[in-house]
């Protein structure tokens, strides 16, 4: 079963079970770390460094609940007229979300590809979709969607999460409450504590 988390509000997370294989499947189980070895250090690791990082070529998901996910190019080429069916697209890390300016009508879901969890481009893509373009539909994280990045993803305006197959759903649901409060503005428009102009105005109102 593939589990989609949907964040309705900060303390209201629902789960949606989708057919097996809808999202990135579970990798092979992890070996238990050998603490003795770790606490003894890892010696010289220079030979283990691989400078070149493989870049993603294709999105990790092909479909969403109501059909195929289009690529950005497919969507932009499409005639905007037939907007009867809800459309979903997937943005790759190299895609420019600003290309969607004026082309958001008819889009129900924008999937943002996190080809690797450590590739942070998706956070800026989601931020721009929400705050710059004002996209009101669903922004879905797909790919390497792991518990420990959910909080940051949600803060950047992502509101649904295609959990990788091995992620524990209950732990994942709690991840949205990891921090009681936050310092800085982000695209989720959540209250934040830095004394900015906007905050003072908000407090005065």
């Amino acid at each position, binding site marked *: 079963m593939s589990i989609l988390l949907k964040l309705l509000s900060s303390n209201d997370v629902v789960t949606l079970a989708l057919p097996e294989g809808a999202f990135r499947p579970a990798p092979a189980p*992890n070996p238990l770390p050998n*603490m003795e070895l770790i606490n003894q250090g890892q010696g010289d690791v220079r030979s283990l460094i691989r400078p070149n990082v493989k870049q993603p070529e294709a999105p990790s998901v092909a479909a969403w609940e109501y059909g195929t996910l289009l690529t950005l190019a497919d969507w932009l080429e499409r005639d905007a007229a037939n907007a009867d069916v809800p459309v979903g697209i997937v943005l790759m890390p190299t895609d420019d979300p600003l290309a969607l300016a004026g082309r958001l009508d008819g889009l129900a879901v924008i999937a943002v590809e996190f080809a690797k969890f450590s590739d942070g481009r998706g956070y800026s893509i989601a931020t721009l979709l929400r705050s710059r373009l004002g996209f009101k539909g669903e922004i879905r994280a797909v790919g390497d969607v792991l518990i420990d990045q959910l909080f940051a993803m949600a803060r950047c305006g992502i509101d649904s999460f295609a959990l990788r197959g091995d992620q524990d759903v209950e732990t994942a649901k709690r991840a949205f409450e990891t921090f*009681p409060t936050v*310092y800085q503005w982000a695209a989720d428009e959540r209250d934040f504590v*830095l004394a900015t102009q906007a905050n003072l105005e908000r407090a005065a109102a």
Partner: protein
Amino acid sequence: MYIYNAIDQSIVDARVKQFADQTERYLSGRISEDEFKPLRLQNGVYVERHSPLLRVAIPYGLLSSRQMRMLAHIGRKYDRDFGHFTTRQNIQFNWVKLEQVHEILADLASVQMHAIQTSGSCIRNVTTDHLAGVAHDERVDPRPLAELMRQWSTLNPEFAFLPRKFKVAYNGAAEDRAASEVHDLAFDLYRDEAGEVRLTVKVGGGQGRTPRVAPVIKTGLHWRDMLSYTEAVLRTYNRWGRRDNIYKARIKILVDALGSERFGEEVEQEFAHVQGGPATLAASELERMTAFFGAPAYHSAASGDQDEARHRLSDPRFNAWVKRNVAKHKRDNYGAVTISLKPLGIAPGDATSDQMDAIADLADRFSFGQIRVSHHQNLVLADVARSDLWALYQALEALGLSESNVGLATDIICCPGGDYCALANAKSIPVAAAVQETLAAKAQDIGTLAIKMSGCINACGHHHVGHIGILGVDKKDEEWYQILIGGRTDTKTALGQIVGKAIPREAVAPTIERMTDFYLENRNSGELFIDAVERLGKAAFHDAAFQADPTQTPPSPKIQEAN
């Protein structure tokens, strides 16, 4: 200094809980090695050659005596009775156990400290001038803005997984004591004609394998827009910085590729959207934050200069210590005292737990309970009444902490190197020790000379900006060393140049000694080493150092490429 409120505390406490949970999931096999790595790194945990290491953030190098005592306690309880102060004003514990790290973090949180973002591909601990607030040549105290940057960057969700690490430094004085121009993002602070704080922004400096002095991309930025502008810089970097090769992923490579002008335009376009937006600081905020860094209750009494003069005349060692270790303070009757962590025979930057406790006591007695860490890996008591200098000196002498070598050839900046670091090509600490030993007798005569040693090309020991730099290289699994000359970061930033061929470890100290001897023979009256290098040329120093040396061998192609 900045004092946490309940909100700051709740965030740091939540972070401890989060990491305890992550560690537990890792240990039970629910998080893979690769996925745990950035989580531990963003909490300061490396796994080094012989043990895990914990790097603790000391924001802009400022510590209270209470915090210093906690660091001493951590050294005692979880490490081998010592800690290592780093070139980024942080402290590292070299011998911790991974499963205990969350307990250490909880101890740190109890004194308003943390290890958040001290490593990993994120916005790192913010650094600045160790004399901030007391420097006689200061235009603007950088600490209030540095603290705002610390808060804004802490757990910033959009920039948690940048292409590579991102270091921010502030300078608000005529002399740049923060080496700001070799940082990813540097702010130079000044006041405009109306008295408003403004910033010159430089982006894309750095050391490592592609050393760069950061070019200016923005002038006259109002402080209220500091965070919005930083957001624009980081968003540009996050989206367009290279991620295909970790050696080409720092922002300097992007700035290089686009050219600083074009990069600046790109940022400006983004800034146009976010200027005046939600990251705009409130007009009153600088004032509120500045209050945390207000002047302590200085005595206005007579300076005690006469006592100081009397003791200086009667005790030449005290005289040397005052000359080298006491910096001019903005108040005449105070001095900023550097406690050198570079005595002979000790790894540069190391302090024992007992020393940390003792220094905390001295800070309470003589310097309003505060201590600073300098990027030179020394500690500073920034507000000592000159009338107390003699008493402080005696106390330091009793502790073996009165080495009067600040800024001298023996005050070497040095990374942990191959003794600890899993990435190092060569050992650093024994090389620094040999150089210190060789030059100790002449150091006072040589005067100001910044020697900086890195055990590999990552340049944690800042070898690019040493007047003399030493770089450890690997040649067919053997440790060799390249010598650089001519780097500096004081009133201008210059990168050193490699001179000569790589040499074996035992040749390093004699080679450097030939350079300093050449300087002693050829200097003009009052001329510093680095100024003599600029006048006489690097070639002259190369010739003096290398022509007589039979041990040199041609460098391997790998080293030439690294050059």
